[in-house]
């Protein structure tokens, strides 16, 4: 070894062999170490690694159910599904999304609207979600993208089911729409314990029937076990549990009637609710202007959104359920019933109307809409000519709390309980209410305006419709509904939803008969809605109304021609027909329409004509042109 002077081959060889032995033993030890490592991995830990390997290769993919479709009462499709290609981007897989979209625009068309919508979606969602940049691609576009696919990592063509609303704006407030699930929806889904069923679903009903009947429409999510490779590509399906499609909804609307009603509004804003007075089925539910629900399906772009949201016409507001207006003279039939009910008036009792009414102790007069008054007015005539003076005195005699007590069972001042969300309760004032709300005493003068449906009294068109339906059906409370049946997706069996029992109100039939007779004369010559009944082969019972928009000082004269369009009064009309066998009861509100008789009345006529005779208007006069008698 070191420093060894003479060569000794045998000793040298033995040193070498010793070293070789040491090395060989070390090598054996090292191999032994490997053997123990393999035993550890492949025997002891085998289950663990087997699980990991299975988790690697098996991916459970949710299979989203088809959403149930929505059909009107005659089987017309109101909301359907169609399958189309979308091009989706997962932003986390793309470096510069903007640049990638620019590049995409050289291959297929990307409209500014698509970009805006994508940007909005991106702000609202997490980075790893797949978001559509283009929807409804044509076959040619799909092919063109496929050729250039390699240039666009993180982009993917997907076949998806889309929701479409074939009637566009028509009935949009009733049908509602679906939209992409947002954070608030996720929280609600999780709170309801439905997170599993919503895996893979990216749309949810947001409004109207789509929102309220989400549970029926969504269906049950299935799942598919697929084998995937390291790149996440599916290689083959291992097993599959089929999804169960959502149930179809049969709604009470008649879409043709709805169209007639919407067209009848012409350029006016407003609302209409038409009910079957026997069942509470909503035949038409109009809120004008509407909106195109199709805009919301793929996520609305900011420009359209701003247009809808900031329009002074408030197209997103469902006026039928959420518009709270002074009901005006339309409540006079109910006031007349209250008068008879509490014995404050007999049918024969008449006043001589000088055109105003004086509250004792108050110097300013309460004016009738008709200067000079209506002459001798009894209960019947008070409805037919809509005499304010009659009701000023009546309200004073009844007092606000009796009015409140009588109106509440008719549905005023509370939500009707219609089967879609967002309804507002209106307001039926009382002394208690004023005290709680304002900590103020109720003044006698407050009651007088309430007597003609003004002052604190606010109602929604839906409430007016249910109230007039009660008059039509002989005094039974009505619960309006939009969905009448659910069709099981699998069995096609139709489950009729029960009609909520109609509670008879304590209205005497003879009282009701008096008021109904007066309402029939409203649409006859001499009434405030003569035009509605003119030449109709059926009898219409109705009542006009006008709701003040600008608070007028008592005694001030109102000249509608001088008032700006937005400050014109709202026109109201409630009616049912045929009066002798009511099939349709409705309430109409025309914003800034002026007089009920001349603006809202013709709308009612068109609806009745179509609903009862199947007749469409031949020539439409401009609403409000022909100025009949006021109020």
């Amino acid at each position, binding site marked *: 070894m070191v420093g060894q002077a003479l060569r000794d081959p045998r000793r040298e060889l033995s040193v*070498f062999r010793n070293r070789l032995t040491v090395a060989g033993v070390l090598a054996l030890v090292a191999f032994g170490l490997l053997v123990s490592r393999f035993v550890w991995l*492949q025997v002891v830990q085998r289950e663990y690694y087997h699980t990991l390997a299975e988790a690697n*290769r098996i991916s459970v993919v949710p299979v989203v159910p088809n959403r149930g479709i929505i059909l009107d009462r005659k089987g017309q499709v109101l909301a359907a599904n169609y399958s189309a290609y979308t091009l989706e981007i997962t932003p986390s897989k793309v470096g510069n999304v903007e640049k990638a979209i620019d590049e995409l625009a050289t291959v297929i068309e990307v409209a500014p609207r698509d970009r805006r919508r994508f940007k909005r979606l991106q702000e609202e969602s997490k980075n790893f979600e797949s978001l559509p940049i283009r929807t409804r691609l044509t076959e040619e576009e799909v092919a063109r993208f496929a050729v250039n696919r390699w240039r666009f990592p993180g982009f993917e063509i997907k076949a998806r089911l889309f929701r479409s609303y074939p009637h566009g704006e028509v009935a949009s407030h009733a049908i509602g729409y679906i939209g992409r699930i947002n954070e608030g929806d996720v929280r609600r889904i999780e709170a309801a314990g439905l997170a599993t069923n919503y895996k893979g679903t990216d749309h949810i009903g947001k409004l109207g029937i789509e929102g309220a009947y989400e549970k029926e429409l969504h269906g049950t999510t299935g799942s598919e076990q697929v084998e995937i490779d390291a790149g996440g590509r599916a290689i083959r399906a291992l097993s599959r549990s089929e999804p169960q499609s959502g149930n179809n909804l049969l709604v009470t609307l008649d879409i043709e009637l709805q169209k007639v009603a919407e067209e009848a509004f012409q350029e006016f804003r407003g609302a209409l609710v038409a009910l079957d007075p026997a069942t509470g089925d909503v035949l038409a539910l109009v809120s004008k202007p509407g909106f195109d629900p199709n805009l919301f399906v793929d996520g609305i772009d900011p420009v359209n959104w701003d247009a809808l949201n900031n329009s002074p016409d408030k197209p997103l507001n469902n006026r039928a359920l959420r518009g709270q207006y002074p009901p005006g003279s339309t409540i006079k039939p109910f006031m007349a019933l209250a008068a008879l009910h509490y014995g404050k008036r007999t049918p024969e009792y008449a006043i001589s109307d000088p055109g105003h009414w004086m509250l004792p102790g108050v110097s300013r007069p309460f004016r009738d809409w008709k200067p000079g008054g209506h002459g001798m007015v009894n209960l019947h005539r008070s409805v037919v000519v809509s005499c304010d003076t009659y009701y000023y005195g009546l309200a004073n005699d009844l007092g606000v709390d009796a009015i409140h007590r009588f109106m509440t069972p008719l549905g005023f001042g509370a939500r009707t309980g219609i089967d879609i969300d967002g309804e507002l309760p209106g307001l039926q004032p009382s002394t208690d209410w004023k005290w709680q709300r304002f900590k103020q005493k109720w003044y006698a003068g407050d009651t007088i305006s309430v007597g003609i449906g003004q002052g604190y009294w606010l109602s929604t068109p839906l409430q007016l419709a249910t109230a007039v339906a009660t008059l039509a059906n002989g005094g039974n409370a009505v619960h309006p509904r939009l969905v009448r049946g659910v069709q099981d997706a699998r069995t096609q069996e139709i489950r009729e939803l029960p009609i909520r029992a109609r509670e008879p109100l304590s209205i005497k039939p003879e009282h009701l008969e008096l008021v109904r007779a007066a309402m029939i004369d409203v649409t006859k010559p001499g009434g405030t809605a003569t035009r509605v009944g003119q030449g109709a082969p059926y009898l219409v019972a109705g009542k006009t109304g006008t709701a003040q928009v600008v608070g007028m000082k008592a005694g001030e004269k109102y000249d509608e021609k001088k008032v700006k369009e937005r400050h014109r009064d709202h026109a109201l009309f409630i009616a049912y027909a045929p009066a002798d066998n009511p099939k349709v009861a409705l309430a109409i509100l025309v914003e800034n329409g002026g007089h009920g008789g001349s603006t809202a009345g013709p709308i009612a006529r068109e609806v009745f004509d179509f609903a009862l005779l199947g007749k469409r208007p031949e020539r439409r006069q401009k609403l409000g042109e022909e100025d009949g008698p006021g109020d």
Partner: protein
Amino acid sequence: MISRLFEILSRRIDGPLMVALVLTVSLGLTVVYSASGGGSLDRVIGQGRNLAVALAALWVVANIPPQALMRLAVPAYVGGLVLLVGVALFGEVRNGARRWLNLGFTTIQPSEIMKIAVPLMLAWYFQRHEEGLKLRDYALAAILLALPVGLIVRQPDLGTALLIFASGFFVIFLAGLSWKIIVSLGVTGLALLPVLWGMLHDYQRRRVLTLIDPMEDPLGAGYHIIQSTIAIGSGGVLGKGWLNGTQAQLDFVPERSTDFILAVYGEEFGLAGTLVLILLYVLIVGRGLMIAANASTTFARLTAGAVSLTFFTYAFVNMGMVSGILPVVGVPLPLMSYGGTALLSMLVGFGVLMSISTHKQLVSS
């Protein structure tokens, strides 16, 4: 005629070693087929071609007597060194490392030459100085070793550098370097570890850290090692069957036909397969050490010993890395991984062993 041909072909071939090599290489081809997705013979044919070239080289080298090999040692070493300097000056950069030299007609990786040239050179050196080895002789040997290793570390190619260092170290160790020095060098080395750590590249440090905790970065540095241990572990005792490894066939195992082929093998053939492979390696190393023990000259002994132990080192480092007990270094699994260069240098090494094993009488006479 045929028996004459067989005689020419097999005269300088060591039977037991050859049998073990052929078995291992055949196993390798089977796994390469599976690792290339099954269904395409391209890689198997490619590897078969590599194998034909490497076997021819083995036969040629086996027919060169050890004395002639000894004469080749210095030119091979010097030539290799010159090429390494050439790499440092004019080398091509690929994947951030300067390892290749473009000779105009072909591109070579001179560090591969050194895998054979270094042990030959050192064995030659100790043979020349066999009368009375002094500390100075070992120091000179260390310099001969340090030159190529240093150049390769700078490329950087830490894996190859370590293996070449190992092959040289085995020669010095077998030549009889005193235990005292080995131990003191070992202690110094350990003491210098923090300094070495500071000299490592970022990616090299990450590889070592990954070994300690692969889950630290499961989709980045840890991904290879996690997926390969899952593959091996999920293979169980008998494996999932040839072509049926899910980890391998679905692409979860990266570099599955080259450095990580053991993961494919372990998954599809299970513990039974890995034990058979280790047994083959033990037989090859054992036979090599036997040839070394019985060799008649210092040069032959040292060369044979170093070649055998270097082979062991390859096998151990690769298996250790793929099974997650050693850091990831770019070392193929000997005789199994797809790739021509490593196979060629490996079989040339075995050619040297066979030459030593079959030329004994000539040398001793």
